[in-house]
């Protein structure tokens, strides 16, 4: 049976991935999320934006969640209508003041190279960003992204051309 990845098809698909909070897993998570999301008609640029957003969320877990050593990071993704929903969760030290942490250039790091733009990039490259955190219990980041080109009346597949298995490149 031929696989189809038209919008709507595979709507029940779901991604659940749990990895240790190691830097190497930022790439694993963003690539997994990108491949999952590519079932929707995202442009390559939008997929790259999503990869940055996921990388920032996982990067926060890697850099900040577990000062005592690597802990668990969960990546979850699913579809809601024409959007992909992505969650990145850790069970680390949490964020005392989420509103402050979401401000550009906020950082708790002593590393002079740390710019504190992680949440700013998540916000910039997604349609909605929600951050729930409890100090000592962990942090949940929830993001939603929808293809810019998605229009109900111009859904793919009506001309008999198979939907691409990856994001469509815009001319």
């Amino acid at each position, binding site marked *: 049976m031929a696989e189809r990845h038209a919008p709507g098809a595979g709507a029940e698909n779901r991604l659940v991935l749990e990895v240790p909070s190691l*830097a*190497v897993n*930022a*790439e694993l998570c963003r690539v997994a999320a990108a491949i999952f999301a590519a079932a929707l008609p995202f442009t*390559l*640029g939008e997929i*790259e*934006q999503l*990869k*940055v957003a996921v*990388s*920032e969320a*996982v*990067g926060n877990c*890697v*850099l900040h969640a577990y000062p005592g050593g690597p802990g668990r990071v969960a990546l979850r993704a699913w579809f809601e209508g024409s959007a992909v929903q992505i969650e990145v969760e850790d069970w680390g030290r949490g964020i005392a003041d989420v509103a402050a942490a979401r401000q550009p250039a906020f950082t708790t790091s002593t*590393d*002079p*190279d*740390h*710019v*504190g*733009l*992680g949440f*700013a*990039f998540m916000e*910039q*490259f997604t349609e909605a960003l929600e951050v729930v955190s409890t100090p000592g219990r962990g942090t949940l980041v929830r993001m939603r992204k929808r293809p810019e080109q998605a229009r109900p009346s111009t859904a793919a597949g009506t001309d008999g051309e198979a939907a691409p298995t990856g994001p469509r490149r815009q001319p």
Partner: protein
Amino acid sequence: MQITREAKGETLIVRVAGELDVQSAGTFRDQVDELFLASDFGRLLLNLSRVTFLDSTGLGAVLGRLRRVRAAGRQIVLVPPAGVARTVLDLAALGRAVPIYRSERAALGEGAQAHG
């Protein structure tokens, strides 16, 4: 991520290819500091045109090199990446912090004029 270097007179060209992220930023920082800051070159041309992915940690490492090169009283210029990696640089208003050129050739030409 791969880093290569080439000397052009007073300028050291450092070319970065691949993904500059939370995993590779530390290596990038150490290699650039070793190649340039520990050298006698007066000017660093950081060519990021083959960077395929850039996150805030990678961006921070780039900004950190700017700061350290300037603090050492030396010059730094950039050739930026394309696509979303370029957007990431632009969101940090990097163009206001450092001269950005379309190509190595343009960066080297401008440098020669500045010296003339």
